[in-house]
């Protein structure tokens, strides 16, 4: 008799993101979400570990899917709202694995990441990309924008959730290309206007040159203090407005160090104030609902720095919340009043 596969607990099985099927680039098409990894971390000046980010985020997603798959009925319910969520049929989500990286050859790595993200965007799939350090966002953005340009996109907005601005122009050690400069490099691309660029969550000591550039350029910043004061809902609504004003879509880049470090310690930078995990997840849900996001990346997750494994779960949950309209069917959970056998036997207390 042939071996029958059963549901597996979360620690078992070969991890693809959310146990999505593996796919190759030539299988991508419109309407599909393509997850890919970019495990490059040779341009970071903080503590190491982000090369394990893609694998870690994949692992962080397994508990959720294992939970659904092990139930006799394959749906879950959001307790507070009473919304029933079952897995959408078909294979809306696929995992194309990791893009090749060359730790001692930045040009080659950049070309690899640019090409991979371009292929995904050209096909019409929605690219969801995991770093690596935050520098990967520059070649990934380049590739995505080239792919979208081939599909008629003329302007892109950019929202960066991050404890840092990453607006360095030139650095005495790193030069012009490292995880402190990707946003500056992106701002120089013709498809982007700084007036459509938003930073959410930056705080702490920042080189004066970057702060001055931000002021001159017309970009917008909300610090954690601003967010505590105005509320995440207002901030994200405004960010979406600014990034989509006059653009054909928005690229969202999430640096996990935007989250309060006590809640999410698994990242190279040390962060004392930021978003709570709940605020991040709410923001991702709002971005999904807006319909304007054309690509998402998640960077700077360094699993070895977090033995409690909270960071990979927060990162995975943020992505799953963003993908929720695509991977879940939602409907109100209607419940009939049940009477147990016990209740019918005896009088209620």
């Amino acid at each position, binding site marked *: 008799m042939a071996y029958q596969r059963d549901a597996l607990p979360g620690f078992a099985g070969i991890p693809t993101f959310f146990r999505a099927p593996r796919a190759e680039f030539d299988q991508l098409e419109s309407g599909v979400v393509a997850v890919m990894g970019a495990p490059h971390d040779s341009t970071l000046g903080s503590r190491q570990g982000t090369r394990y980010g893609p694998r870690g985020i994949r692992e962080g997603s397994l508990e959720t899917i294992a939970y*659904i798959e092990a139930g*006799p009925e394959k749906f879950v319910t959001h*307790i507070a709202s*009473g919304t029933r969520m079952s897995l959408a049929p078909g294979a809306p989500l696929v995992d194309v694995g990791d893009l090749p990286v060359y730790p001692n050859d930045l040009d080659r790595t950049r070309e690899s990441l640019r090409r991979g993200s371009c292929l995904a965007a050209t096909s019409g799939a929605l690219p969801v990309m995991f770093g690596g350090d935050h520098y990967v966002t520059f070649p990934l953005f380049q590739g995505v924008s080239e792919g979208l340009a081939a599909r008629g996109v003329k302007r892109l907005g950019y929202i960066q959730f991050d404890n840092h601005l990453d607006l360095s122009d030139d650095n005495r050690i790193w030069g012009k290309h490292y995880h402190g400069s990707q946003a500056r490099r992106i701002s120089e691309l013709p498809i982007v206007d700084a007036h459509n660029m938003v930073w959410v969550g930056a705080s702490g000591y920042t080189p004066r040159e970057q702060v001055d550039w931000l002021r001159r350029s017309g970009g917008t910043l909300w610090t954690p203090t601003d967010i505590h004061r105005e509320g995440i809902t207002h901030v994200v609504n405004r960010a979406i407005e600014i990034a989509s004003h006059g653009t054909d879509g928005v690229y969202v880049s999430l640096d996990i160090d935007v989250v309060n470090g006590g*809640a999410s310690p698994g990242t190279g930078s040390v962060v004392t104030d930021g978003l*709570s995990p709940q605020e991040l997840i709410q923001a991702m849900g709002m971005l999904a609902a807006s319909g304007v996001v054309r690509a998402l990346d998640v960077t700077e997750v360094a699993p070895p720095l977090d033995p409690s494994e909270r960071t990979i779960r*927060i990162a995975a949950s943020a992505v799953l919340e963003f993908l929720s309209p695509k991977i879940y069917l939602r409907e109100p959970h209607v*419940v009939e009043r049940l009477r*147990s056998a016990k209740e019918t036997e005896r009088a209620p*207390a």
Partner: protein
Amino acid sequence: MHQRSHQPSFAGVSGFLRSPLADYADVGPGAVTILGAPHDTTCSSRQGARFGPTGIRAASQYLGDLFRRGDGDLVDLATGQVFHRPGAGMLLDMGDLPVQPTDVVRTTASIREGVAESTARGGFPVTLGGDHYISYPAFLGFSDAFCGSNRDQRIGFIQMDSHFDLGDINLVWGRYWHGSNARRISEVDVVNPANMVWIGVNGVTRGEQYEFAKGMGLTFFTGEDVRQLGIVEVVRRALEIAGNGTEAIYLSLDIDVVDALFAPGTGAVVWGGIRPADLLAAMDLIGAANVRAMDLVEVAPNLDPTEATARLASLAVIHLTAPRLFGARRP
């Protein structure tokens, strides 16, 4: 003869809060009895709850030693509450109950019998998990002794937890695992679902559990409800429901009801959980009501290098049992 004198807090073999290790014969009416149930093979999240009893005892030693400095009274700097040193014989540590990691039937019987024995002698059982499954045999043991043959009695049930644990059958884990303890408790004859309350549930749950909760008329307050209404109001309502027509209330506390920022030492990672101050306030309020037994589960000390989770668990036990132990009062 060698005199045993004082030792530093990190030294010495003793029970919870430096209480003596005791046997059932030492249990008198009103004594708070700590019972370890280091069972965790029915845990579907990350491992480590088997070290819960050890970790909680270790984290409590420092607190136990604070009582011997000065005149024995302690002040809670945040609230002004005063705690006295436990009276002689009022806090006993019964050690750990035997568990069989691969045999849930034997483990269930062992925990059930230990908790029943302590209850029958007049003790207030505090069962330290282990994973949340142990709540089911602990409840069975308590109700065996408390109700005896009088099955018309009713026991109210409060579960503080991010999860319902109302699963019936799981394709991987079967019928008896840390996702089904509350479902199994709901099936006990002395429990009326109308007296069952959850505080702190969050996120998503399997659809069948939500259906069961809503369909059976169980009451639940989410983490958001706690933030909106305040912990005092939520607990007041919970006590009303659990106390309505019942002779006793059983409290089951899963430490993952607390937000992962403050309690990372547990298998499940939860955000939107309640704050430590709210947990301790809830313990004060429930402790002053007709609670007669509790369990505290899912502390996995290995997952929290700061030891704060185990320390918070110790404080939760102290706050809940304070009226019995110390006659705690506000100044």
